[in-house]
């Protein structure tokens, strides 16, 4: 594959590698400006309370304190359209901001927080989502009238959801599940739980704001500079053109970095004091005052025939979205569309999802957005269904997984929106099919089974791989899928007169390698060197419109935009070269920094010469609204997804409950690998994070008070190097089926890797110990409980 390309498909060193290994990389939290003030936030100790009195006089009087904000002196605006005000007088979760202080040093700011006197009237707290659904439950937002999201646009920034029912359930249905269950030979039924998980960004988020006259520069550690720009503009009542959001690095956000509220508060304090202001979250704030993955409780029912046909699947899911449901529609619709409606072929299907508000910190996007949560539920139930009919779980998945032509739907369809979200479609769903580029599940399953030696190692249901004293070994499989956002995005590619090129894009470098991949695509398109291309990312003044990076959209949206913009530059360069060489542009080719005539390569000019002759060659491109991507053969809508199949071997010590991951292999559908080492790193990320999800990451919230009890890395356990197998025991398999619309066939796939890792651990543990764990985690406590050794 890579031999046909000069730059694409090669593991070239990352564009940001040098500065990351020599200490030069400057994250937002590293920025220091002259006369800069430091901001800190006072946070509510109560999950639900009214602020009845707030006195900042002692804080203001502390030498070095320059500004104190409370709900009394900030605008009554709703950041991100959420229910809460910028600084509210009502607290909805333990940790919500009560006040903000800007001072000469961090120490003084922290001291000032202690001098703010607040009186709270504590209100009843609701934590459990099923309790919150009851009619007499305390309300998180009184004005909404219920804790169950019902699709109204009131207050929130999420997509409108015309199909969300007024009774609080999002429905999706195919056929008649009652009929399907009646026809089944076996029925699996049960309650499965997926836990919360915290994004745990390596660098806590930060924002620096500085005004120059009426112009604001806001350096923000954010995934979506567009939202920061829009939101700060809206809250301050100024045009977006006056705000420059620069996101030099979004450090390891994994879906969570949305510092809009903080950005607005810091901007206000910078304006009031006439000085730059910086806010850096502590690790504790990063745990408490940002969003995390929602927990799900799934009532699952699957009907199967002896021959393995799935006659019916029924999913009833309750998600705990914390104190605001901004992300509820996004996450729940993704779960419905992908894992529930598309991942498997079935005769009948019913889905109902509820997004419930409670007095805990917000839940929202974390790698996988709804598919890891749903996958952990469905893939355990599917495994039980395969067992019920005595079928090999690999065979069962091969038989039933999605393939070209099987049913597919997008989460926008599920919500009742057109692809561009401008049209409401409450009454019909545009069911599409799985297209050729997503027809990879069978290949993924076959390849991972082969690489893991499944046939040799799996000894059958209720038979562990090996038993050695108290230690038992097991092997299991799980598959998963997730969307990849192909949506409007812009890019500009401009040449410099020396033949080097700059790209401007609103994509943000999280660590996923987009700067590198984008440069490779542009260099390949123009036939120039990788080292000749530099990418400017995430600057709302210098880069054209784009949302940032989310939903694996970097490679699916931002990069194709840059690709097409580069093609435009190539066209213009060819026009110049053609005139110079006395040929037609279509006779030309570009490679090795030269533009030459295809059948007379000696007749050529350098790309550099074309650039200097052209004075300025600029290509711009905006990806159109996808309207629908269509299958060439049938004309049916195809939706953009990617998939994964994973097999893991574990060893469980039945005496202590300890689980060790011995081997893991994962086959990923990645379109076309632009940079294999980067692809591998993204696969590794999915494996590690989903292992943590199942095995160790417990976000512990007190059931009475709603307080987060373990907001630090000592007690929120991330996977260490020793928790993962050795190098040779981790196998990444690339399955490349070029997409029709991505740059050189590539597509975004990173989040997909987070969908299979948790259920594969559960299924492998089952093979080892013979007892199913349907609860939230596969921890030693859960294993010992399943074995009846503790209660």
């Amino acid at each position, binding site marked *: 594959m890579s031999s046909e390309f000069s730059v694409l498909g090669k593991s070239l060193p990352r564009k940001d*590698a040098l500065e990351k290994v020599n200490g030069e990389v400057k994250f937002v939290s590293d920025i220091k400006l002259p006369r800069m003030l430091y901001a800190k936030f006072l946070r509510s100790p109560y999950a639900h309370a009214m602020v009845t009195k707030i006195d900042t006089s002692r804080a203001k009087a502390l030498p070095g304190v320059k500004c104190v904000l409370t709900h009394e002196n900030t605008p009554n605006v709703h950041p991100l359209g959420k229910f809460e005000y910028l600084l509210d007088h009502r607290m909805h979760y333990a940790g919500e901001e009560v006040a903000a202080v800007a001072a000469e040093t961090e120490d003084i700011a922290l001291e000032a927080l202690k001098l703010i006197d607040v009186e709270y009237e504590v209100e009843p707290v609701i934590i459990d989502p099923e309790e919150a659904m009851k009619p007499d439950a305390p309300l998180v937002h009184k004005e909404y009238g219920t804790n169950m999201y019902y699709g109204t646009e009131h207050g929130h920034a999420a997509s409108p959801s015309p199909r969300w029912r007024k009774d609080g359930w999002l429905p999706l249905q195919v056929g008649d599940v009652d009929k399907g269950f009646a026809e089944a030979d076996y029925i699996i039924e049960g309650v499965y739980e997926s836990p919360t998980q915290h994004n745990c960004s390596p660098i806590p988020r930060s924002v620096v704001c500085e005004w120059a006259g009426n112009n604001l520069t806001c350096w923000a550690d954010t995934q979506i500079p567009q939202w920061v720009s829009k939101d700060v503009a809206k809250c301050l009542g100024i045009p977006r053109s006056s705000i420059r959001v620069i996101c030099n690095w979004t450090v390891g956000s994994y879906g969570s970095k949305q510092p809009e509220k903080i950005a607005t508060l810091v901007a206000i304090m910078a304006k009031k004091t006439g000085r730059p202001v910086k806010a850096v979250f502590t690790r504790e704030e990063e745990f408490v005052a940002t969003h995390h993955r929602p927990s799900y409780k799934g009532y699952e029912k699957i009907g199967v025939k002896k021959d393995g046909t799935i006659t019916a699947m029924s999913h009833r899911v309750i998600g705990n979205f914390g104190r605001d449901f901004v992300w509820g529609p996004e996450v729940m619709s993704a779960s419905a569309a992908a894992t529930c409606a598309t991942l498997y072929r079935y005769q009948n299907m019913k889905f109902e999802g509820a997004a419930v508000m409670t007095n805990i910190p917000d839940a929202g996007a974390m790698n996988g957005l709804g598919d890891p949560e749903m996958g952990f539920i469905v893939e355990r139930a599917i495994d039980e269904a395969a067992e019920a009919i005595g079928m090999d779980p690999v065979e069962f998945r091969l038989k039933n997984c999605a393939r070209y032509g099987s049913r597919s739907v997008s989460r926008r369809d599920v919500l009742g929106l057109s692809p561009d979200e401008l049209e409401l479609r409450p009454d019909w769903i545009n069911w599409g099919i799985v297209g050729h580029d997503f027809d990879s599940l069978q290949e993924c399953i076959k390849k991972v089974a082969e690489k893991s030696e499944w046939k040799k190692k799996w000894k059958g249901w209720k038979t562990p791989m090996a038993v050695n004293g108290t230690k038992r070994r097991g092997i299991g499989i799980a598959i998963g899928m997730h969307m990849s956002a192909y949506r409007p995005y812009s890019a500009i590619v401009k040449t410099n007169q020396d033949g080097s090129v700059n790209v401007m894009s609103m994509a943000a470098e*999280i660590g996923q390698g987009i700067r590198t991949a984008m440069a490779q695509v542009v260099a390949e398109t123009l036939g120039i060197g990788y080292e000749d291309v530099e990418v400017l990312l995430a600057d709302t003044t210098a880069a054209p419109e784009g949302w940032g990076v989310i939903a694996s959209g970097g490679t699916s949206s931002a990069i194709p935009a840059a690709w097409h913009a580069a093609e435009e530059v190539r066209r213009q360069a060819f026009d110049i070269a053609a005139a110079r060489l006395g040929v037609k542009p279509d006779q030309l080719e570009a490679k090795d920094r030269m533009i030459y005539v295809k059948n007379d390569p000696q007749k050529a000019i350098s790309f550099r010469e074309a650039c200097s002759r052209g004075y300025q060659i600029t290509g711009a491109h905006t990806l159109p609204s996808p309207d629908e991507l269509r299958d060439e053969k049938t004309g049916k809508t195809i939706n953009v997804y990617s998939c994964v199949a994973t097999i893991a071997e574990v060893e469980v010590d039945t005496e202590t409950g300890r689980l060790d991951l011995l081997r893991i292999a994962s086959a990923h559908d990645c379109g076309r690998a632009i940079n294999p080492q980067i692809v591998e790193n993204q696969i590794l*990320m999915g494996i590690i994070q989903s292992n943590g999800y199942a095995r160790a990451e417990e976000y512990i919230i007190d059931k009475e008070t709603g307080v987060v009890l373990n907001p630090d890395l000592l007690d929120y356990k991330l996977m260490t190097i020793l928790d993962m197998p050795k190098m040779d025991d981790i196998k990444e398999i690339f399955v490349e089926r070029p997409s029709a619309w991505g740059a050189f066939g590539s597509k975004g796939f990173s989040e997909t890797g987070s969908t299979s890792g948790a259920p594969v651990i559960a299924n492998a543990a089952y093979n080892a110990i013979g007892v199913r764990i349907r609860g939230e985690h596969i921890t030693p406590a859960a294993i010992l409980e399943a074995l009846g050794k503790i209660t």
Partner: protein
Amino acid sequence: MAVAITLIVNGEGHKVDVEPWWSLAYVLREKLGLTGTKIMCNNGACGSCTVLMNGQPVSSCLKLAVLAEGKNITTIEGLANTETGELHSLQEAFIKYSGMQCGTCTPGMILTAKALLDENPVPTEDEVREALAGNLCRCGSYKRIVQCVLAAAETTRGGA
């Protein structure tokens, strides 16, 4: 009450006034402007803030600045050869084999690995894993990081 101390960082002496409770990480970053050392957890659990003190890895977020006086401190900025600009073999390896994603754990990983290779130039994979046990990588690049360290060891051996 500020205390006047001298910190020797990357071969240079720096006079700085510090509060007794300030960590070395805070002083390096905020007072000396050496922001290459990153703070991830601020309580010793993650290893991202690791610097070398007299050649040994230290959690700079735990180490009080006042207790670091008189020791030779090496931060990530001081790893390359200051005269020639030549990168350390570990830095080369991390670039060549993509040993990072977001970059937060990278300085800590490299410095911890340097201490390992200085003591044990031919480590096994198990020894590398043990040495890096206290360094967390949320992006999950452990496998590639181990590859980088072993490659760096190989290069040094080959070149020596």
